[in-house]
């Protein structure tokens, strides 16, 4: 009788311990933990590509393929984004009609600050990207906003990125449930399959970096935003981060969202945060 009782007690205790462990796991899995996510994200790529220097991930497909890298290095002597860079520098310095300039809208006069964008605006409760901040600056100074997918915006961001080259990405997530929700929303967007092709961002940029999709070599997701904006030979022109997201969606046969939709802002926030510590390399050039 005593033996049976001890057996029963033992079984109950084991069941309780197992339950406690499982519930702790469930709670942990549901908690938003950007630090752990970023660590896991970076480790995944560092382990998958042990021969790639960490700071090289920001060079996209060139970090995955030696031949392509050599071609790119030669191309960098006369980079195709140079015209955009010159135009952006001039636009940045040209005063608005009211006499103010972009420098008046940004910390440090807008120089060397790319690595801090996007940021979470606690007053507004939403993510603010560099492209959005530039258009807000224009509107605040009585100018019409630029298209998020066209050359003017790409030129301005190209110049701002260039002044920040080499600076490590430094995205903050304030202790604010709305900021954590934005990060989580961006993560969800990144991993969610969409379009008739049933692709998520991760299908190409986590599962298949270094592989070819038709003639292109896919870039790793780690550091992918550090190179923005980019000159794409395929486009014969510059592309903003907004343009890149819109195009990715269309390629999977998903109807793109409007540029700077909350989802796009959040996914940029997520991708930038997990690339913290990796250098800004924009403007980039891609095949």
């Amino acid at each position, binding site marked *: 009788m005593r033996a049976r009782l001890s057996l029963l007690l033992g079984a109950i205790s084991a069941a309780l311990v197992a339950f406690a462990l499982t519930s702790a796991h469930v709670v942990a899995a549901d908690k938003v933990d950007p630090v752990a*996510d970023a660590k*896991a*994200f970076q480790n*995944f790529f560092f382990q998958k590509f042990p021969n790639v220097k960490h700071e090289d991930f920001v060079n996209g497909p060139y970090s995955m393929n030696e031949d392509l890298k050599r071609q790119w290095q030669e191309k960098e002597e006369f980079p195709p984004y140079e015209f955009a860079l010159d135009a952006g520098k001039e636009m940045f310095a040209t005063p608005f009609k009211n006499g103010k300039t972009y420098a008046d809208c940004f910390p440090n006069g807008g120089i060397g600050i790319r690595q801090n964008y996007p940021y979470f605006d606690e007053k507004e409760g939403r993510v603010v990207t560099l492209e959005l901040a530039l258009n807000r600056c224009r509107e605040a100074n009585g100018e019409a906003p630029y298209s998020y997918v066209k050359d003017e915006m790409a030129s301005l961001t190209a110049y701002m990125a260039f002044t920040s080259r080499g600076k490590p990405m430094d995205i903050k997530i304030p202790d604010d449930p709305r900021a954590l929700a934005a990060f989580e929303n961006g*993560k*969800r967007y990144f*991993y*969610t*399959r*969409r*379009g*008739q092709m*049933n692709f*998520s961002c*991760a*299908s190409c940029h*986590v*599962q298949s970096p270094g592989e070819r999709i038709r003639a292109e070599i896919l870039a790793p997701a780690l550091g992918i935003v550090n190179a923005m904006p980019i000159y794409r030979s395929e486009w014969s022109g510059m592309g903003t981060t907004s343009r890149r997201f819109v195009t990715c969606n*269309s390629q999977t*046969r*998903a*109807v793109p*969202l409007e540029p700077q939709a909350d*989802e796009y802002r959040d996914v940029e926030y997520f991708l930038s945060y997990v690339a913290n510590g990796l250098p800004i390399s924009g403007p980039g050039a891609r095949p």
Partner: protein
Amino acid sequence: MKRAIPLAMLLALGLAPAARAANEADYKAAYAAAEAAAKEAASLRHQWTTTISTLATAKKAADGGDFDRATAAAKEAKALAKASIFQATSEKEAWKAMEIR
């Protein structure tokens, strides 16, 4: 042989309704159903480009009086929209399986 002829006629008559050409009413009903499904997909922010283009194909065929083609395209558009709704619904949880942890 003599018996086979009436049998064949019966069979042909039996199949006749299925082979009936689609008319404008068929098209309008199919298009309305496809449009409703497409609207739902759009509200979930999971619309497919192919749903939109197939709806446009249906409309173009109907404008040209080809209701057979128009109805078939509208039905295809509805199927595409329904598939995108299924994707949106299943991905609410399924995305977690892809996450790097």
